């Protein structure tokens, strides 16, 4: 029996996230959080890292990939168009590069999804790694020059960043579906 002084607060806190017969996830959170997470990844050029060489993983793209793997169909197939345009504003790539490559990746992921509906962690990582490698190489090509030794550290970092991004996406997915709305 909680003390009567604190019970209103503790009851409220305990109530957060508990499924109940009259509760459901908020639509706003469920729809907005995935979008905001990918856009925050696209904003990584404004993070406190000033790099002399391209080392940062393309975070927006990796997060989009992780969302597609965790919740296929959460983003519509055409999501690469608006999200890629947003990424192009900040990435320093020529405008249109992310629009093209993100759209391409979304279509590719959709085809893979139909072909392999049941996937494990290893398979996701392999597919993610291959797509990220292709993305980094093609981005460099579109930006005007492919210099493989220069890109290798970034590719390695990006592939290693994929499972972390997937964990982050998993955590945000739980947050997104917290049943806070009362019917």
């Amino acid at each position, binding site marked *: 029996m909680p003390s009567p002084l604190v019970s209103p607060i503790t009851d409220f806190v305990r109530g957060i996230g508990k499924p109940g017969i009259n509760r459901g996830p908020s639509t706003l959170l469920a729809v907005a959080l995935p979008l905001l997470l990918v856009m925050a990844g696209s904003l990584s050029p404004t993070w406190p890292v*000033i790099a*002399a060489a391209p080392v940062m993983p393309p975070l927006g793209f990796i997060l989009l990939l992780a969302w597609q793997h965790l919740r296929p169909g959460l983003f519509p197939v055409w999501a690469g168009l608006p999200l890629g345009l947003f990424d192009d504003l*900040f990435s320093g790539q020529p405008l*249109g590069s992310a629009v093209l490559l993100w759209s391409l990746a979304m279509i590719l992921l959709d085809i893979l999804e139909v072909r392999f509906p049941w996937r494990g962690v290893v398979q996701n990582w392999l597919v993610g790694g291959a797509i990220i490698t292709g993305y980094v190489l093609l981005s460099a090509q579109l930006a005007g*020059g492919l210099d493989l030794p*220069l890109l290798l550290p970034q590719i390695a970092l990006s592939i290693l960043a994929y499972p972390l991004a997937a964990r982050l996406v998993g955590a945000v997915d739980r947050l997104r579906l917290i049943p806070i709305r009362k019917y």
Partner: protein
Amino acid sequence: MVAPVNRRPGHSRRAQYGTFFGYLLAIGGLGIGVLLLASGGDDSSAAQAARNGAADITAPAAELAAAGRSEGQGLLAVIGGYLTRGSRVARLEREVAEARVKLAEQAALAEENARLKALLGLAQGEVRPVATARLIGSSSSSTRRFATISAGSRQGVRPGMAVRAPTGVIGRVLEVGDNTARVLLITDTESTVPVRRATDGIQAYAVGNGDGTLKIRLATTGINPLRKGDAIVTSGSGGLFRPGEALAVIVSLTPDGAIARPLSDPGATEFVIVEPIYDESTAQAATAADGGR
């Protein structure tokens, strides 16, 4: 987790059209990307306006992050300093002793310089910076090397102006927003800076490598006169950069030039100054000649 995707949405016409137009739009996205890239839309004023508008909006948050970055680096430096302080004190004492001798020589040289300049009647104009700004972001995942600074057209910044850190030139302004500006770093592969060797004035070009180093290309062919450790300064040709500003130090030689490391590390810099264009008329002629880039 298996897909809840409804690829065969049943008899609902509305759902069928939704799926169909979704795919149509996705393929349209591919086409739009190709069109944007092929039309050279990157240089168009609309693209520049969109980019600079986006940078202006995120500038306040990015400035906070920039302050955090410099503080974080300071903290790491303090920790590192504790670990290596013994050897560093010894080395610094030796360097101070050497520097005292050099300082005396420099004082004599400065005096001689002032005397000779007075003789020639040259005015010793001090450069007034256009603006002092924070370095608030860089293209950290793209192979292009751009940075964003927290000063724009409202602060008087114009495209072409040189941007320098306390330790040397870091780049020049490419596009200007209201309160931010995009800087083409000297390490970008599209950046070319006319330079000379500090000691004897051999002319060369410093072209970015994209990996944080510079390629020094000699203006004349022949025997490569460069040596490891040579200091490279701007030569002032082209009119954008003021002559004699420190730029880089040569770290290794190539058959037709050298690889140099810039003296200024944008990552270790918080504040930069924007300098006015050195020679307006020459710079206009030069930028008109190479298409504004």
